């Protein structure tokens, strides 16, 4: 039904510790300007543990990840669900690693 155009390989993501094995630095190290362009693809908005989970998964998929605070974006949609959330809601962007 839908054609595929972006294959990425991933191994099973198995961890042993009790702390999230999440590259939280990925969320902070990315620039917050120009959300799309230069190969970045907008994924979805997320916060808290789910954000960590998503970043972890995209890293396992071998993708480069950056996040942008949703409030900084020109968001046309309704933000009622997360306006008063304790965790900042971020929009996730990914692109294939250029190496």
């Amino acid at each position: 039904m839908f054609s595929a155009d972006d294959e990425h390989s991933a191994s099973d993501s198995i961890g042993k510790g009790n702390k999230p094995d999440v590259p939280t630095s990925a969320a902070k190290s990315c620039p917050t300007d120009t959300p799309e362009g230069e190969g970045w693809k907008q994924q979805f908005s997320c916060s808290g543990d789910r954000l960590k989970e998503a970043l972890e998964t995209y890293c396992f998929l071998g993708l480069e990840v950056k996040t942008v605070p949703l409030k900084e974006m020109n968001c046309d949609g309704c933000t009622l669900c997360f306006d008063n959330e304790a965790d900042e809601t971020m929009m996730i962007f990914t692109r294939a690693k250029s190496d």
Partner: protein
Amino acid sequence: MSITAGIDVGSTYTKVVIVNDQGEILARELRPTGFKLLQVATATLESCIKKAGLNREDINYIIATGIGRHQVTFKDVHVTDLTASARGAGYLFPNTRSVLDVGGQTMKASRVDENSKVSSFRMNDKCAAGTGAFLEKTARYMGFETEEIGPLLSTSREPVPISGVCAVFAESEVINHLSLGTPPADIMLGAITSLVERCLQLLRRIKAEPEFTLIGGILRFEAMAKSIGDQVDVKVNVPADDIVQFVTAFGAAILGQRRLKKLAEEQALEASAG
């Protein structure tokens, strides 16, 4: 015989599945997750062990998954729920190439390869409109509990349009329909139709390929799976009965069997080398 358990600590329910080395389900159990994740994981596992007629010592390996997996201190390892879901869906339906998981708080679509490894995924935006919470809210506005949604849907004749844009605004839409005399069943079916449209959008975004396997608690409503099946022209698999809700925990248990086998092979190799 090796026995493994998969524990899926989801945002709404915690599910446990115990399997043997033939991949047969010996028992399954679920409980509302609540806020005490370790306690509920422990209690659900103990109850499941009892159902299977086993003792705690009989469980050779435990894999935790789901958003609360890190709280399960007695696990052997943990995996992401995408990994576990892909494994479970692939075990039940080997030709699965796309998995749609609709849960209480999230909706996830993923593409998987022939080895049941995730190759791409996408989740719904942080908005209750795309999840089971939307259905629950709609039901609650009309005075129905979540478990009454299924029977209610079976009496519906024609869905009424629900914008599906926002769960917060859906309340006014529901009230408007009720004031016009629309049967609650038709409003509920309208909410399902709206949710299905979001499912299809998500599948398009990941460029889903057949066969599709549908999993998650919300897919236990037959109308939901049927509506998706009616709108795509590819093979759609839905695990039978309540298994649809346990696929992620099942996948974790199956991964446990795989890990045990690998560990045994490694030990045998070391023994032969020594």
